[in-house]
């Protein structure tokens, strides 16, 4: 459901900065269903990849073989990401807080001797800063959805509305968070993440249980329509193709 909901968030000829895993699955699913002209950009240096199967890594040869252009890594970040040429950045998170700040660096308060050492920043800080919008895809639990992240790897909305502007960050930051339970969006007034949609079969109580802060629920809460036959077929085909 998470991949389908994430795929539905993409449309038309948007230029999407894609990471491996769920974002890549969602972007490829969207390209095979309702958004055939989606432009996939991978940080390994491919613009406009059209893979016929799911790539096994961001540097899978199929991404280069099917791309409009293959470029160097400095060029990806300097020429294409930094000036705001990418519409949507898709990010995952180990921890996400109520203002959409993302941690993929360390768990625990002490950077020098962390409880858990995570992979680190990669391309994420600048993706979060420079893409016009950021979609976060993450499994929801009290461990991942925290009041405040232990380390800000990628800036979301800081401690509230206006913090991005103060720092001069060009993009809008996280505008959509898609989880296995539902969808959250920042409140237009406070930038705090609010539950706006739940997936079929999920209760609000379940979502609250899996959130590490006192979750606000939008008055006009909607339910994610179940996956269509076409979406499920495309997803199965994508996963089966090797």
């Amino acid at each position, binding site marked *: 459901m998470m991949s389908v909901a994430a795929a539905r968030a993409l449309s038309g000829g948007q230029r999407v900065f894609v990471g*491996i*895993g769920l974002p890549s699955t969602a972007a490829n699913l969207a390209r095979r269903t309702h958004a055939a002209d989606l432009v996939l950009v991978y*940080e*390994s*240096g*491919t613009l406009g990849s059209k893979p016929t199967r799911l790539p*096994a*890594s*961001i*540097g*899978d*040869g199929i*991404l*280069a073989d099917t791309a409009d252009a*293959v470029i*160097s*890594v*400095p060029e*990806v*970040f*300097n020429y294409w*990401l*930094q000036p705001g040429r990418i519409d949507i950045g898709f990010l995952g998170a180990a921890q996400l807080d109520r203002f959409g700040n993302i941690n993929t*660096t360390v768990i625990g308060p002490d*950077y020098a*001797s*962390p409880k858990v*050492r*995570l*992979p*680190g*920043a*990669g*391309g*994420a*800080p*600048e993706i979060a*800063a*420079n893409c016009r919008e950021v979609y976060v895809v993450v499994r929801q639990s009290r461990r991942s959805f925290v009041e405040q992240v232990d*380390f*800000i*790897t*990628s*800036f979301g909305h*800081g401690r509230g509305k206006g*913090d*991005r502007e103060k*720092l*001069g*960050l*060009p993009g809008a930051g996280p505008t959509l968070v898609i989880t296995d339970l539902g969808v959250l969006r920042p409140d237009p007034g406070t930038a705090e993440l609010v539950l706006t949609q739940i997936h079929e079969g999920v209760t609000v109580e379940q979502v609250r249980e899996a959130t590490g802060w006192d979750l606000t629920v939008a008055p006009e809460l909607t339910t994610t329509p179940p996956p269509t036959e076409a979406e499920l077929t495309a997803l199965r085909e994508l996963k089966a193709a090797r």
Partner: protein
Amino acid sequence: MAETTSLRDAVAQLVHDGDTVALEGFTHLIPHAAGQEIIRQRRRDLTLVRMTPDIVYDQLIGAGCAKKLIFSWGGNPGVGSLHRFRDAVQNSWPVPLEIEEHSHAGMANRYVAGASGLPFAVLRGYRGTDLPRHTDTIKTITCPFTGAELAAVPALNPDVSIIHAQRADRAGNVQMWGLVGVQKEAVLAAKRSLVTVEEIVDELTPVPGQVILPAWAVTAVAEVPGGAHPSYAAGYSERDNDYYAYWDSIGRERDSFQRWLDEKVFSQEVAK
């Protein structure tokens, strides 16, 4: 002119204890064989540089070759954590590992500055993140024209950079293509460089989108077929995705890693 030599001799001559060493390759063309030769020659106190330290750096760190790591993303791509890296950071095993942590954009620009002969690079990055609090090679600079606040990062100039490429000719001109990552910048930024190649040919035939490193910009070339495995070389080999999953079971425990080192690295002498 680049010297054509064996992998063993190249590492012996170019990589010294205490050096700053970069092995680059972005998923594609990762110089694994060269990394294992460094382990085999028991280099120590290296400052290892790499945007995406993955399996080959897990091996170097676990074998005790490194005292410091400069990086932007450390993991086993698509699989999970690097357990030797984690063990070194969290438990100082087998030796303590100091880290200097950046983002990809920062690292890429540090190489660009190094290759350009500039002392630092400027980028719109890091703002609002906690990285500058822990990494003293991230500073803020004011644009003299607009007054905008930007990030500044110092050039990376490794003592030696090592990459893997598809082909070289007998004079040592190097040809690579496909995903070329940050390899050209890493070589041009370094004091010395080693390029391992799939094959040495009499004449290089042009390939679309290729990058050429002229012989005079490279210190040494060594023919090492399959030298990128489990990574791949477009036109020569496929990525061994199973190996990345397999590494998780080897790297997870100190014992299994030690056995792997003895069986797969120390017992294998690379032909002279």
